[in-house]
């Protein structure tokens, strides 16, 4: 291998390392308390090395949320596909995916579970419109993906009363976000899965009332 083969790869690796370190720091203590100096010290690079990869801290934060959105979107898609392959019934597949979703949300590289979008939302005045759009994008794809499955469940099991499927899809997101906050604040055991179980019981009652 020549130098030119190695360089871009090492650069990419440094970039990823900086992002991983920043993600952990921001999830642990927030954006404002995370400094470029501590990140370069941990990564063992110079300040100019940092600025080679990111224009500033704000750009790094946006890149983190872009990456997070892409990871969660692909992860959720895969969870749905695996569950749908295993469960021909659309409601069963949805219920199974919701368990997986809650479990994935609880897994964290940090000491407590957390969500970058939520962390940024609680410091929104430090950011710009583009960041707001990235947060919104994250809420939108989750709603869209869950709603699509709720529609399939509703087609097979027509609910007795009219249900706002957007709000019902959002409820899964709200529960995951809220449970993460609870689990950051409270000592173990985590509340996440029990919160999601209630949502699943609710879905069963709405769509397959006799089976509930």
């Amino acid at each position, binding site marked *: 291998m020549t130098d030119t083969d190695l360089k871009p790869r090492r650069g990419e690796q440094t970039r990823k390392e900086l992002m991983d370190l920043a993600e952990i720091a921001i999830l642990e203590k927030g954006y404002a308390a995370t400094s470029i100096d501590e990140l370069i010290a941990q990564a063992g690079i110079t300040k100019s090395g940092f600025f080679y990869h990111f224009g500033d801290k704000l750009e790094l934060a946006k890149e983190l949320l872009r990456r997070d959105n892409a990871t969660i979107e692909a992860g959720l898609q895969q969870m749905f596909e695996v569950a749908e392959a295993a469960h021909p019934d659309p409601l069963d597949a949805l219920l199974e995916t919701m368990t997986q979703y809650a479990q994935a949300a609880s897994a964290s590289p940090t000491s407590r579970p957390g969500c970058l979008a939520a962390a940024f939302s609680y410091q929104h005045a430090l950011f710009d419109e583009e960041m707001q759009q990235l947060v919104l994008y994250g809420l939108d794809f989750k709603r869209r993906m869950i709603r699509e499955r709720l529609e399939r469940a509703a087609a097979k099991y027509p609910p007795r009363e009219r249900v706002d499927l957007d709000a019902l899809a959002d409820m899964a997101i709200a529960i995951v976000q809220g449970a993460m906050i609870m689990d950051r*604040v409270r000592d173990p055991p985590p509340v996440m899965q029990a919160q999601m179980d*209630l949502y699943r019981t609710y879905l069963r009652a709405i769509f397959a009332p006799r089976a509930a």
Partner: protein
Amino acid sequence: MAVKVLSKGEATRERICAAAERIVLEKGFAATSLEEIMDAAKVTKSGFFYHFKDKHDLAKALLQRYVDHDTRIMDELFERADALIDDPLHSYLAFLKMFAEVMDDLPDRHPGCMIASYCYQDQIYHREIRQMSAEGVLTWRKRFRERLDAIAKRYPPRAAINLDALADMNITIVEGGIILDKGRAEKGALPRQVLMLRDLIKTLFAPA
């Protein structure tokens, strides 16, 4: 609602807390300077330090104030619901409806929860802050749980339900609803989620 007349000192303290809470919920505690809080509250440095020893002292005061305030709103709404309705389930449903209305009537979207704000920042490393936060959510859980017990006694739930989890869900949905509200362009996500919770409780308890 009873309006308490504040002394001049109490009024200043309250003004500082209100200004600080607004700023902290917008940009976080670490990014908020004491100078800008003093500016916003229109108090001098000595005025500020008469009321608070340091920034950490203020952090604790803001958290306690938030928990007390939320608990008071909750108690008042439950009292109103109880005055109107004897049945524990229907009183709870009325409470949630009124709570959603209060959220919907806010001039702007919900400014945020101090517990959630701190938990996403380095305040979470302070033992006292963490303890106060945990106690806050446990106080709320206990209040909901007592009422859910009374409901479950009269209306056996249609499925096996973890009542602690259902009590927690009142907090979870509000915290998560605030995150949705903050992220969405249009306001209204939070009250809508509170009404979803209301429907969940109605569905789980009301006889089919």
